[in-house]
């Protein structure tokens, strides 16, 4: 089994990529992907910690949390996609920078 550190580095990296994606990308769908990445970074943490909780055992709490979290992320995505569709209908674009009616 690999050292815990590698998993953690991976999850942190995933998190950073996700945030970077959110902070730079302008396509609405990509933004959703960025959010998914963030959630998954956390999920990986849960799985990893569950595995490393006690030698030879897997902590069920971490796994269940990850499973629930995936489900919740799915719900989120569903709502988000619905909003994106509505947005596209109204604005005719998927560029987030075009959404600038609200400012100041």
């Amino acid at each position, binding site marked *: 089994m690999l050292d815990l550190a590698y998993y953690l580095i991976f999850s942190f990296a995933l998190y950073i990529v996700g945030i970077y994606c*959110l902070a730079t990308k302008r396509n609405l769908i990509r933004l959703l992907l960025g959010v998914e990445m963030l959630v998954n970074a956390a999920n990986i943490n849960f799985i990893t910690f569950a595995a490393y909780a006690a030698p030879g055992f897997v902590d069920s709490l971490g796994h269940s949390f990850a499973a629930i979290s995936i489900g919740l992320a799915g719900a989120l995505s569903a709502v988000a996609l619905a909003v994106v569709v509505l947005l596209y209908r109204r604005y005719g674009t998927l560029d*987030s920078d075009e959404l600038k009616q609200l400012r100041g």
Partner: protein
Amino acid sequence: MQIIDVAPWLCWILPAIGALAALALNKVNRKAMNITVLSTTLLSCIMTLLMVPSLLNNSSIDHALFWFQIAGAQVNAGLLIDALSIIVANVVSFLSLLIMIYSTKYMAEDPSIARFWFFMSLFLSSMLLLVLADNFILMFIGWKLVSLCSFGLIGYYYRDEKEHWIGGPAPFPFQKPSRNGLKALLMTSFGDTALLAGIIILYLYSHTFNFMELIQTAGTWLPAMAATPGILALTCVLLLLGPLAKSAQFPFHEWLPEAMSGPTPVSALIHAATMVKAGVYLIARMLPIFFFAAWVAAPAYPEALTFFIMAGAIGAFTAFLGGTQAMVAKELKKVLAYSTMSAIGYMVLALGISGLSAGSLVAGTSSSIFFLINHGIFKVVLFLCAGVVIHSAGSIYLDHMNLSTKRMRFTLVSMWIGGLALMGVFPLSGFWSKDNVLIACLESGQYAIFAVAMISVVLTAFYVCRMMGLAFHTGTPDGNIHRDEEFRDRKLAEDHAHGEEGHWIEILPYGLLAALTVVIGLVGPLVSEFLSSAFSTYYANMGLEVAAETHTGFLGLSGLGLEVLVAAVSIVMILIGAVPAYFLYIKPTSNPSNLLPQTGIRRTLYNFLWNRWYINAFYNKVFVEPSIWVSKRVQRYIEDPLNQAINGGIPEGFKWLSRGLSRIQTGKLRINMLYLLVTIVIALIVLWLGGFI
């Protein structure tokens, strides 16, 4: 209850009721109003007369009632009845009564006479309160109220119609009655402020406001006061400033000439006979305290002499100052006003004398009070006559008068009696009191003051003769008066036929008083003797026992010899003043304007005197104009910029800040997410720098 317990209270409460009655009855019935006011005045006068018996038995009664409490003490309201207060109260109420009678005719046609009665009655009430009060606080109430009444009466013609202006003629400035009232109020207020400071300092050491207690306990509190050098002198100065302002003494004398814009009875009562004497009264009232400090206490406190030196010097100077100005005045009432200043200068001077040597206390005080009585009487005569004269002549300027000596015989005679008494001609009342003052000067060794007083006698003789001459005998003017339109406008509406004698109701009061002047003159030495004995008992009761009179007299003379000498010298002095005036104005041998070339030293002197020594101008330049200058600029240069900076600037700043900060809200989703990232990064950096991770 004895009459002496009630009379003092009634004598000042009655006129107050009269004052209110005047307002209440104004719309109801004028006649009833006049009668009510006169009867309250009469009753008040009777009440003061009822106090005279206790003057004869030299008692000093203090009626005190609980008034109110202050931290750690209480203040009582009481009336003090002693020689000083009885004499002054009688003078006030008697003169008031006569002047009120005179006014019923003089002011009869005035539409707002209720206001006149109100202020006159209130004045009488507060003047009596001032005189009878047994403590500083109660006295001060009367003191301020008389100022207020004076304000109301000087500005009686508040609409400032041209005929009531005073001053001029053009190009010299005219002053309006309303402004003159304010000027009088403010100048006396300035003195009052100082007086109040003095009273308070006195209280802080003595813990009492009561006049009698102040003197009785002086021995215990004076050491504490004298422990700090300067305090006693400061108190002297502060306490004197109030009376000096009230009595129109230098440097506060400037309000009096312009106070003549009030109705003539007002000038007679307030600005000649009574209110201006309040200062003299108060100095006399406070005098024992400082006399005690300067001469009786052991060790003596020489700082207390400040009081007497200041009074003597200022009194003498004002006597001279007033005399010089009266010599050139063009308005009849102003001549009398200047002469009032001068005469009060005499009284103040005499009071100063009384403390300048250990032995002249009684002589100084009694001569001063004697002068006060006499001056009150004959100055009222002069003013009341002046009222009739002005009505008759239809002008306030002496140059315009030239009245008939035939048709106005009563007025002429009365006025001459008053004038001669003012000059101090034997055997009228003024002679005795003036000589007493002069003797007191000599006896206490104050030769400088004596000399100034003597010069003033010359001046008095001159201006009285000039005034009478211009008014009745020749009417030859002495200046090159600009007889332009403005000047002609100043003539009063001619409601009397030119040169007509006054109504008998008007003549009666001043006739009576002129007679009284003669009577007092005839029994002068007796009155003088009576006053000295009254005051020596008065002071003895206070414990101001002074060693037997040790002065050696002047040139080895004393007693009768000295009196004769002084009388002789003063008669000479009167002649020195009167003779030139007689030949210039009464039986003119040359035109007085010939004495005044357009330029030259005499012209300069004339201008100097005419412009009142430039003192008024100086005050205007130094106090009035800068104050106005400053007040106009405070708003523009301090208040407005502050307002701009704070009330305008700070909101502007916030607006600017708000504009700047709202740029954070870009509306771009990417930037928002960047904030999130940055937050995490900064948090990590801070933690790292803090050594936490």
